[in-house]
């Protein structure tokens, strides 16, 4: 309820004022007989308005007014002076002391109530404003806090990638505090790397939030070594679920082979990727062939990727449209052609160099969009991945296993060995090759050594099926014989020696004559290509190969 404090040393005045106020509906009225008790009451009750006598014993109204105002620094507290004075100088003094209006003695009820109503309106408005200011203040605190939380999560999700720092030159320029651009990089289990360059619609908090699930899923899939198209399809699915319909992510996913010279690319809406040779010629342009991520449903999503071969020393450039949208006051937009001209004509070895050129091109104007640039110089990852002799314990590893006919009936003996070997430092990167080599050796030992199958049977299509039918049949009936496998890993020389011995009668494979036609004989060729050395010993019963890694 609207509360009014009357301060007057004369009882009769307080009574008259109270009666007029109550009659007008202001029932919450409190009274003080002098300045000191007025201040005490104001502090205790926080009234909405004060009617203050100017001349009182002790503290005068002029002294009390500024003190009263201090109780309400953020909000308008109307003070109406009760006075019989009407000379100009006295009235000015009252206003200077903080008074807002005057009530002249003798009191006129109509004028008094009209004035009170006017100041009541101001007081009410001021209270509402103070309340809104306060909630705005809390709201801002809340937004600020939310920003800090998201910033923290974002920073963790975008954890710095060692692979990125080691092999790529890159630059990310956010146009606002949160970046709509996303750059992710992860080592692939086969020894190469995966790269994700994305640009969410819009900037700021909203786009940063979309980046978080993408970053987590991308990293997990890259670590598993999934194919680029699988990663693209999965990220599309995630964004379709997460993002509102008007938001999507222009993106490009690149897998770089361990050689550093073969790229598998899925490009959905990013400016075309460019590969430049050491002389400055543009070797490849990899255009965007797809809709951005987060638009198409799973069934209509296009997974096809492009494979591009480069040579050692070439450079791959990936960038978001912020760079090509750089605008010169007279020459206009830079465009993809402009970026490629720079790339071709200048020997730009760092992403930063592009940013500097772009800022020069804009002639001092700020960038209008986030800019992300990644530059990669093609070189084998294996060389760079050389383990640090001092940090990794490089212990030689040697093992031997004897597989009886019971073990050989399982088709996944090779899986078992590859899985064990993959735990050794450096071997994870060549697990596909190790699988091929072990399978070849094992199949030779089983099919020719123990089961005495003749490869020539495979030359006709009927024979091909017959061969594998016989293989299954004879293996099932096998009651004797064994295969001995020895593995020897020398991590310092980076050599893996595999020896496979079978208890059969010995068998020498015929070399393959016509590569494009014979359905058999390729096993030995693969061994020779994958291994540093292949030796057939003990009349064909034992094969020893050495792989380097």
């Amino acid at each position: 309820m609207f509360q009014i404090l009357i301060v007057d040393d004369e009882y009769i005045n307080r009574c008259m004022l109270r009666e007029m106020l109550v009659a007008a509906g202001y029932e919450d009225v409190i009274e003080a007989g002098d300045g000191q008790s007025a201040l005490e009451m104001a502090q205790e009750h926080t009234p909405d308005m004060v009617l203050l006598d100017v001349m009182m014993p002790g503290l005068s109204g002029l002294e009390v007014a500024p003190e009263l105002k201090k109780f309400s620094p953020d909000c308008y507290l109307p003070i109406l002076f009760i006075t019989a004075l009407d000379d100009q100088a006295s009235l000015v003094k009252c206003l200077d002391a903080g008074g807002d209006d005057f009530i002249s003695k003798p009191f006129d009820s109509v004028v008094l109530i009209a004035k009170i109503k006017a100041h009541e309106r101001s007081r009410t408005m001021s209270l509402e404003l103070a309340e809104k200011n306060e909630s705005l203040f809390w709201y801002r605190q809340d937004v600020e806090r939310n920003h800090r939380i998201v910033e923290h999560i974002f920073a963790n999700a975008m954890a710095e990638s060692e692979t990125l720092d080691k092999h790529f030159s890159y630059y990310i320029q956010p146009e606002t505090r949160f970046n709509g651009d996303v750059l992710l990089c992860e080592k692939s289990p086969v020894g190469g790397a995966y790269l994700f360059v994305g640009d969410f619609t819009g900037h700021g908090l909203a786009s940063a939030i979309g980046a978080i699930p993408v970053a987590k899923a991308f990293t997990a899939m890259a670590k598993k070594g999934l194919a680029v198209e699988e990663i693209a399809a999965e990220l599309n699915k995630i964004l379709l679920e997460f993002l509102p319909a008007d938001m999507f992510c222009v993106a490009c996913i690149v897998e770089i082979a361990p050689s550093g010279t073969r790229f598998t690319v899925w490009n959905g809406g990013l400016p075309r990727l460019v590969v430049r040779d050491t002389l400055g010629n543009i070797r490849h342009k990899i255009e965007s062939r797809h809709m951005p991520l987060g638009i198409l449903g799973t069934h209509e999503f296009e997974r096809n990727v492009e494979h591009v071969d480069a040579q050692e020393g070439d450079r791959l450039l990936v960038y978001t449209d912020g760079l090509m949208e750089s605008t010169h006051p007279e020459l206009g937009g830079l465009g993809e052609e402009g970026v490629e001209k720079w790339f071709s004509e200048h020997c730009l070895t760092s992403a930063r160099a592009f940013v500097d050129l772009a800022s020069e091109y804009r002639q001092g104007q700020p960038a209008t969009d986030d800019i992300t640039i990644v530059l990669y110089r093609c070189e084998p990852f294996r060389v760079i991945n050389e383990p640090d002799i001092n940090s990794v314990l490089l212990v030689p590893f040697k093992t031997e296993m004897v597989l009886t006919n019971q073990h050989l009936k399982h088709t996944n003996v090779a899986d078992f060995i590859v899985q064990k070997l993959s735990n050794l430092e450096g071997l994870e990167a060549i697990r596909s090759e190790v699988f091929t080599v072990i399978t070849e050796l094992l199949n030779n030992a089983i099919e020719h050594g123990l089961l005495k199958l003749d490869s020539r049977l495979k030359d006709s299509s009927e024979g091909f099926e017959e061969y594998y039918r016989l293989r299954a049949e004879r293996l099932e009936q096998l009651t004797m014989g064994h295969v001995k496998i020895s593995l020897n890993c020398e991590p310092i020389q980076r050599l893996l020696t595999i020896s496979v011995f079978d208890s059969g009668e010995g068998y020498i494979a015929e070399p393959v004559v016509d590569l494009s036609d014979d359905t058999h004989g390729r096993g030995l060729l693969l061994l020779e290509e994958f291994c540093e050395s292949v030796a057939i010993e003990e009349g064909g019963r034992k094969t020893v190969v050495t792989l380097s890694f």
Partner: protein
Amino acid sequence: MTINTAVKNGECWEIQLGEKFDFSVVTDFREAYSDMPASIKEIEVNLTDTLYMDSSALGMLLNMQKVLAGKQLRYVISNCRPAVARILEISRFNKKFDIV
């Protein structure tokens, strides 16, 4: 079964292999092209998921061409991972298949 098949663009029979393409899938692979619609003009062997392969897989691929020799088909091997691409390259498979 680790092998999936589907008709793509009405004329292409897509055979998608699993993580392993070795003799353990001989029967599955044979069945994968035994019952194709007549409209098929192209077979695409999609190796996007294939990490492990051996020479018996090469035999299976060539045998498929022998079995289907009567039909005028285009043969494509797609999305090879580097180790698999190398196996195909060593064996000069580009002479019999379009490797994309």
